[in-house]
């Protein structure tokens, strides 16, 4: 057997005890001694001996300074874990790596990290520490730690553990939240995830820097804490207590350790029975009442059910073959996962029960106990109980606290070996209380949810750990009155049931396939509708049925589109971190606000807006918001505000970045633009409108930053932003007021797969133009048209002269007519300016599915893709931006046909 699991146990034990916990110290010492007897312990031998020595000195009251000795003990234990971890997380990982599990962990942890990151940024902000955020951050770190330990990612576990302790220490000492360290952890974990997803057995990135940083922070914290302690003496008792919101987590972490520790040492006969009052508690189990906010609840319910079903099956196999390792592992994993996720969501009763069952199974895995039928029965009942606890989340009636407590108690009893004595102990406990239990059992069927509403096993309010006779701790019902009356709870349940939708995971390729097929269906349906022989049918029934089919197809298209929509939340959350980092680097104070992060966008669009957003947010932080002293001088608050919002507007999504900084400095922009020769030669600077000047910052090579920072100022940035957004068929606009701030807004299509298109024709060919790009269309009269130098054609549109580009000449086609007054002009709005596009006629407006023009073919300028029209033929979708480039290029060649429209 490898020493890794033992080292892990030692590590978590050391984390859970303090210097006054003698039974814990004894157990730690025993485990350390056991470690020394093992084969692979050579590298940690001296450290273990040191640790044993310190533990002994505290136990025997020989130490002069117990706190210091305990400190040294912890340091030695940390050294051992770090040593084992650095010996190779891979060596550890290889022996029991479960690729499937690892993958699940990777994907779950990516999400966790995203949340953790935004939480950390939120916590770091000024003002009091937000209890909810804090609890969340701790929960996530704890979950990652637990799962990493389970996956034998020792280094990750150690790092998480250190950060966790650091947070606790900081809070107990009433110090600032260690956001910097937490973010360092997040960064490192991200690198770990990268490394692991590339190669599961490859090494993890070096954690030396991170651990050093945490160690330094922890030492600083200890110094302050100790001085605070000596100064304040008794008075510090209250201030060093952790904030109340944290208490449940602490209780949950420590409770099992102490309980199992006690169970190992205390002879079964002496095991004091748990107070029976908690067994016949008829109050229903309740959850913290802030659950409703969590949209992951539905996922959890589905997943938990799956795991529990798998666990049940595995238990049934175990009943036949108790020695089999694989089903045991399955059951263990099921409970562990349920516990982890439930812990993350603060479902305390579930966590507690799953934890007990897991401990029992863990003992069985380590061969300390055998799984006899009693124990398996108990595990099965734990499954049942968990299932009903999960069902409670959906609004089913909850099991009683009494039954839950009883099951937890039994699970703990079963931890002891040999089964015989355990049996008697359980029996003693049970028979001694027979009347009570019987009453309990009788009382169970007719529960009175309202009779004892304030005796919840765990409400959102803090639970007080109460030491029992044997040193184990029972979470006692909170004395605080429950917030919900029985009827209120029923309503709540109903609401919750309505909120939770069951979900299935589907691979993206299948989803894409579905969307494509629906696109085909739309085309095929249009082909049928437009078929001349169908149109010649005049039976009313046929027409009615056809329109029914059209309606269904349209609905189907809507549904399939909705499938690939995801909220912009995850992308937005990353920006919070960016703002924080940029602000810290630039010495600025920025309050970051997100709005409408639940707005849904096509998944591909959400991915693609990440980069432009990063550029724009950086610019806003770096150039937009002024440094605190400048702000104060301008009569503004020293903290700038940056608001990132998303909302629907007229069939597209708008993402806005609004800052209250200095606004764009038009004078400087203009000066820079002239300096860098970004203005077309014939432009008179005084002719430019404010918005035209603002838009100059999107020119390639533009930057007004006085000095180039590592954040922005190299003049690549805004032009890339505009290119990226235009590639998404979106638009970016600026509005800015000097001294009041600027707003950048991106207008994006809802989906990448379909556009609202205007079908136009030139000669025999048809083209699709995005409707969004067309400002107006008109048939020009001869007096609307002007020309210059015999070539440059222009049209007068509302008093302004716009250049005319002929689609026929850009694409070298034969138009039906070369007379402009016989064709149509479309006024096209592109970021490159407005221009008129001359076409033969407009055929109609329709939604088209965008398709690539064959893989492997490079892009053609002015063409965004192809669409299959109703008659099955392919029409090219035009890209207005590229068109205007292509047109200018075309104009440079002398082949442009002479004007004819104007002469006529």
């Amino acid at each position, binding site marked *: 057997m490898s020493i890794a699991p033992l080292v892990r146990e030692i590590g978590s034990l050391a984390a859970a005890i303090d210097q006054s916990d003698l039974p814990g110290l004894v157990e730690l010492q025993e485990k350390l001694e056991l470690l020394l007897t093992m084969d692979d312990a050579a590298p940690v031998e001296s450290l273990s001996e040191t640790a044993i020595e310190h533990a002994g000195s505290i136990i025997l009251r020989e130490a002069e300074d117990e706190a210091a000795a305990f400190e040294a003990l912890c340091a030695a234990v940390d050294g051992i874990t770090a040593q084992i971890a650095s010996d190779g997380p891979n060596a550890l990982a290889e022996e029991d790596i479960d690729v499937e599990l690892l993958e699940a962990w990777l994907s779950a942890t990516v999400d966790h990290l995203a949340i953790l990151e935004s939480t950390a940024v939120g916590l770091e902000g000024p003002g009091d520490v937000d209890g909810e955020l804090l609890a969340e951050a701790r929960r996530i770190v704890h979950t990652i730690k637990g799962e990493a330990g389970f996956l034998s990612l020792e280094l990750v576990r150690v790092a998480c553990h250190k950060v966790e302790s650091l947070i606790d220490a900081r809070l107990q000492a009433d110090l600032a939240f260690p956001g910097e360290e937490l973010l360092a952890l997040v960064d490192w974990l991200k690198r770990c995830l990268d490394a692991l997803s590339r190669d599961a057995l490859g090494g993890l990135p070096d954690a030396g820097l991170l651990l050093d940083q945490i160690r330094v922070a922890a030492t600083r914290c200890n110094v302050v804490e100790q001085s605070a302690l000596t100064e304040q003496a008794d008075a510090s008792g209250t201030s060093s207590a952790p904030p109340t919101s944290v208490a449940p987590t602490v209780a949950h972490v420590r409770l099992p350790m102490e309980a199992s520790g006690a169970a190992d040492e205390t002879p079964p006969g002496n095991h004091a029975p748990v107070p029976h009052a908690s067994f016949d508690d008829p109050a229903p189990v309740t959850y913290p009442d802030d659950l409703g906010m969590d949209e992951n609840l539905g996922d959890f319910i589905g997943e938990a059910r799956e795991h529990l079903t798998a666990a049940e099956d595995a238990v049934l196999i175990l009943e036949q073959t108790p020695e089999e390792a694989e089903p045991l592992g399955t059951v263990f994993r099921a409970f562990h996962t349920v516990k982890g996720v439930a812990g993350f969501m603060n479902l305390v009763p579930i966590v507690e029960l799953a934890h007990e069952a897991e401990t029992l199974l863990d003992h069985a895995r380590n061969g300390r106990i055998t799984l006899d039928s009693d124990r398996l029965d108990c595990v099965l009942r734990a499954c049942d109980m968990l299932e009903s606890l999960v069902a409670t989340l959906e609004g089913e009636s909850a099991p009683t606290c009494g039954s839950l407590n009883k099951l937890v108690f039994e699970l703990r009893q079963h931890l002891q070996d040999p089964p015989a004595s355990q049996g008697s102990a359980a029996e003693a406990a049970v028979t001694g209380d027979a009347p009570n239990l019987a009453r309990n059992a009788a009382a169970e069927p007719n529960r009175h949810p309202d009779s004892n509403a304030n005796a919840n096993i765990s409400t959102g309010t803090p639970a007080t750990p109460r030491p029992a006779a044997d040193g184990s701790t029972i979470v006692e019902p909170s004395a605080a009155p429950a917030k919900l009356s029985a009827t209120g709870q029923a309503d709540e349940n109903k609401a919750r049931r309505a909120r939770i939708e069951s979900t299935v995971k589907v691979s993206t390729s299948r989803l894409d396939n579905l969307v494509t097929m629906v696109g085909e269906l739309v085309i095929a349906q249009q082909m049928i509708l437009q078929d001349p022989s169908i149109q010649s049918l005049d039976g009313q029934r046929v027409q009615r049925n056809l329109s029914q089919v059209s309606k269904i197809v349209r609905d189907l298209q809507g549904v399939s589109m909705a499938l690939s929509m995801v909220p912009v939340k995850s992308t937005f959350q990353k920006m919070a971190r960016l703002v924080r980092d940029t602000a810290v680097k630039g010495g600025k104070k920025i309050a970051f606000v997100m709005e409408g992060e639940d707005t849904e966008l096509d998944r591909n669009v959400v991915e693609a807006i990440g980069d432009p957003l990063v550029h724009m947010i950086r610019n806003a932080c770096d150039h937009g918001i002024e440094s605190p002293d400048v702000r104060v001088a301008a009569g503004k608050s020293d903290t700038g505000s940056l608001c990132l919002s998303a909302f629907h507007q007229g069939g597209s999504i708008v993402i806005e970045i609004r800052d209250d900084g200095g606004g764009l400095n038009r004078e400087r922009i203009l000066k820079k633009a002239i300096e860098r020769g970004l203005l077309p030669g014939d432009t008179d600077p005084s002719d430019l409108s404010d918005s035209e000047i603002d838009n100059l910052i999107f020119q390639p090579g533009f930057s007004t930053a006085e000095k180039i920072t590592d954040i922005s100022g190299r003049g690549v940035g805004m032009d890339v932003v505009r290119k990226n957004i235009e590639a998404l068929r979106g638009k970016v606009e600026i509005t800015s007021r000097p001294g009041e701030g600027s707003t950048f807004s991106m207008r994006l299509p809802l989906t990448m797969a379909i556009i609202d298109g205007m079908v136009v024709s030139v000669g025999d060919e048809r083209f699709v133009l995005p409707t969004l790009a067309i400002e107006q269309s008109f048939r020009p009269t001869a007096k609307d048209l002007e020309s210059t130098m015999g070539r440059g054609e222009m049209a007068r549109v509302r008093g302004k002269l716009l250049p005319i580009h002929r689609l026929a000449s850009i694409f070298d086609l034969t138009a039906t007519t070369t007379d402009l007054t016989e064709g149509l002009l479309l006024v096209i709005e592109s970021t490159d300016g407005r221009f008129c596009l001359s076409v033969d006629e407009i055929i109609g407006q329709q939604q088209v599915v965008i398709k*690539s023009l064959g893989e*492997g073919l490079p892009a053609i300028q002015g063409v965004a893709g192809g669409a299959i029209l109703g008659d099955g033929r392919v029409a090219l979708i035009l890209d207005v931006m590229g068109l205007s480039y292509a047109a200018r290029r075309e104009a440079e060649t002398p082949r442009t046909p002479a004007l004819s429209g104007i002469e006529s």
Partner: protein
Amino acid sequence: MNTPQASPASSPTAASSSPQELVIDGAGSDTGNKFLTFTLGPEEYGFEILNVREIIGVVDITPLPQSPDYVRGVINLRGRIIPVMELRTRFGLDTIPYDEETCIIVLEVSDEENDEAFQMGVVVDTVNEVLDIPTGSIDPTPRFGSTLDTNFIFGLGKARDRVVTLLEVEAVLAGEIQDLTGESDEFADAA
């Protein structure tokens, strides 16, 4: 149109090395020696059957602007848009009007970088048959000097009493991609 002509200099290097490899392959397996033959005028050509996905009649072709002259345009192949090449123009022959014998052979080559199959149609005068040509009956391409670009040719197959020019699918199509890329780079510069 100011499109560059396919010149021997711009042809991919892959074309010159692959014939040898293919011959080695062919020696090992017999299935690799089946060819779909077709005609362009009086001459008979062949594509290795493994690269042929399907044969369809001529459908409406939407022209692609700013493309080499031998790119006929794009077609709708059951909902998928694929480019179509005029093989006669590609080989420098005169084009002839399409008739009911004219076919589009849909070729497929896998793009190993993206793990995707790239499909393209080529227009030919008529499709003949599937021929079995043993490796021993395939002669290497003779050198014609600068008058004739032999990069597309992987060998000359002798079957019964006639000679079939066996074409290198990747070279025929890859040249196409190459040219278009060059074209688009030029655009990028102009932009």
